[in-house]
């Protein structure tokens, strides 16, 4: 009886800890915004005023709303990419490289030939998926076959992609004229705009579709089960007959493909060509923040991407309207990551507090 009592207490305790999965991201966002407010105070700006501008720049007008969603699209993709990696226990820090490779690949298919749209557009999207997938999958391959840490590989692959795309866009694939960019893609490869005059494009449907698909894969398919089982305990998964090596490669392919779709939607939905990059836009890195805030759940990722989409949209407006340097958004972003990542502190404190109350003895 006593045993049962303890295990029941333990179950209750773990259940009560579960709620932190929701509370911690929200607290972290609030704390991050507070850190931002402190920096604004330091330079003598009014944080309330600034955050009002932040809000209205996304929700105050149709155009603002559209621009905010345009910022959100790539973040949903890169957030899903990181989240999917997290689920199997991999850290895909190479979203920026996968983004660029897919960006180039989609633009390439886009300008290479003219085809009927129902064929051309899917083909250009597919090119991005494959390019990003292979770029990410290579890191998975090295991890699975040689045990090379995927963080190091994907960092290196980021820079290889940066210079490779730069070379292609300013060299072999460069369009006539002075611009270091590929030729423009044909209309048949463009992701259509939702409304005339606004930049919001069909990429938003692709992104939401991807989120639903990833949810489905993770919780409704054998692959998803294996991915999650491997992420929980890869030795046990292996012992239970799961081919961990194969799943690592596949997961990195899917993760890379997702990040690639961010580049694809950039090329096919916004820029209609691939420019020589002069650095990383940072969608891959922001995707890490998105996945953390979203607790690696597709729905959480969409919400997290919206949050960072709003912040990105508001950064410029806060600078021009209330004189808050736009870099404050990066400070907020970094703070949020630190807070979410330090959830151990929250849990540690709660456990100490409960221990003192004599509630639960051991629940590690």
């Amino acid at each position, binding site marked *: 009886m006593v045993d049962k009592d303890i295990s029941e207490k333990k179950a209750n305790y773990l259940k009560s800890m579960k709620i932190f999965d929701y509370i911690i991201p929200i607290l972290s966002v609030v704390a991050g915004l507070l850190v931002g407010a402190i920096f604004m105070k330091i330079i003598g700006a009014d944080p309330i005023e600034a955050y009002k501008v932040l809000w209205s720049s996304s929700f105050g007008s149709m155009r603002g709303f559209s621009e905010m969603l345009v910022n959100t699209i790539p973040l949903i993709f890169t957030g899903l990419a990181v989240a999917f990696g997290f689920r199997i226990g991999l850290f895909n820090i190479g979203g920026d490289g996968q983004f660029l490779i897919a960006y180039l690949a989609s633009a390439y298919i886009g300008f290479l030939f003219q085809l009927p749209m129902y064929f051309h557009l899917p083909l250009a999207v597919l090119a991005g998926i494959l390019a990003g997938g292979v770029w990410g999958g290579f890191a998975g391959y090295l991890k699975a076959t040689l045990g*090379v840490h995927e*963080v190091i590989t994907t960092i*290196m692959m980021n820079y290889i992609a940066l*210079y*490779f795309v730069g070379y292609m866009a300013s060299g072999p694939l460069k369009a006539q004229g002075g611009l270091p960019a590929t030729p423009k893609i044909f209309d048949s490869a463009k992701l259509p705009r939702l409304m005339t005059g606004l930049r919001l494009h069909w990429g938003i449907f692709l992104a939401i579709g991807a989120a639903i698909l990833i949810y489905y894969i993770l919780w409704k398919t054998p692959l998803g089960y294996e991915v999650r089982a491997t992420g929980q305990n890869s030795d046990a998964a292996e012992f239970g007959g799961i081919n961990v090596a194969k799943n690592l490669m596949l997961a990195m392919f899917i993760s890379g493909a997702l990040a690639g779709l961010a580049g694809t939607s950039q090329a096919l939905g916004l820029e209609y060509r691939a420019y020589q990059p002069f650095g990383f836009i940072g969608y891959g890195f922001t995707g890490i923040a998105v996945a953390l805030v979203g607790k690696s759940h597709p729905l959480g990722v969409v919400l997290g991407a919206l949050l960072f989409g709003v912040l990105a949209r508001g950064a410029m407006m806060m600078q021009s309207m209330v004189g808050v340097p736009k870099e404050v958004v990066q*400070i907020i972003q970094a703070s949020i990551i630190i807070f979410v990542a*330090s959830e*151990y502190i929250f849990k540690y404190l709660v456990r100490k507090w409960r221990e003192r109350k004599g509630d639960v003895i051991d629940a590690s």
Partner: protein
Amino acid sequence: MLASLAALLSTTLRMATPLILASLGGMFSESSGVINIALEGIMLIGAFTAMAGSYFVGPWFGVLAAVIVGMLVALVHAIASITFRADQIVTATAINIFATGITGFLLRLIFGDAGQSPSVQDVGTWTLPGINKIPFIGDVIGTQIPFVYIALILVAVSYWVLFKTPFGLRLRSVGEHPAAADSVGINVFKMRYIAVIMSGFFAGLAGASLSVGLLDLFVKNMASGRGFIALAAMIFGKWTPHGALMAALLFGFADALQMLAQTLGLTFVPRQFLLMAPYILTILALAGVVGRSTPPAADGEPYIKEEV
């Protein structure tokens, strides 16, 4: 011909210097079992601090400030990843994003312009008397920015510390097998704290070498991936100071060649290929194509002390 070769090698040394310094930092951290991909961000903050220090006081004050601030930022990484067991990659990523934000923020705040700082006084150059008279060698290493000499000396010192002192042995044992180290009375947490803070020292110094050594100003995002190349040099050099030195020199040579080719308008090989060479070589090294690189066994794993 010989003169331009000397110039090329001299540039190689200069370009390799930030990489040497930062890779030594990464090496100490990883030897103790803590991955530090925040080198990039700490370098950036160090570069800004050194520039600001030079602007307000003087160049060497700037260097000192950069080193101290570098250690403080590394301390944050240490607290989060050692004490609070936060994911080391996540914390470091946050630091990297924070570094971009805070340096851009302060740049705009202090100097108004968002792109770069005004010119400040740099640390100048040192000349090795005697050596600078030797033909060729004198041209390569006789007169250099002080950071070149500092970096070379620190390579030797690091080798000695890591492989010839009890401290180094303890540090490496903590990175290879923390539980075993703990059982013989080594304080794992303390060793890791020291190592991570040391990495901040080196990365801060590397940053200073950019803004008051190679250049005399701060440019937004001026680390531009050097922290990651330093990581690559550390891996390529198999986590040893002399290996990192050779790797950094190789990468610095690729960089110098790329700059020279650009100045002379040479296009025998696209400059992007030279720029990506360090990263490709590192992946090849990790894959075992050019001598397998194996990290410390407990690299990246938080240590949880067993309760007795």
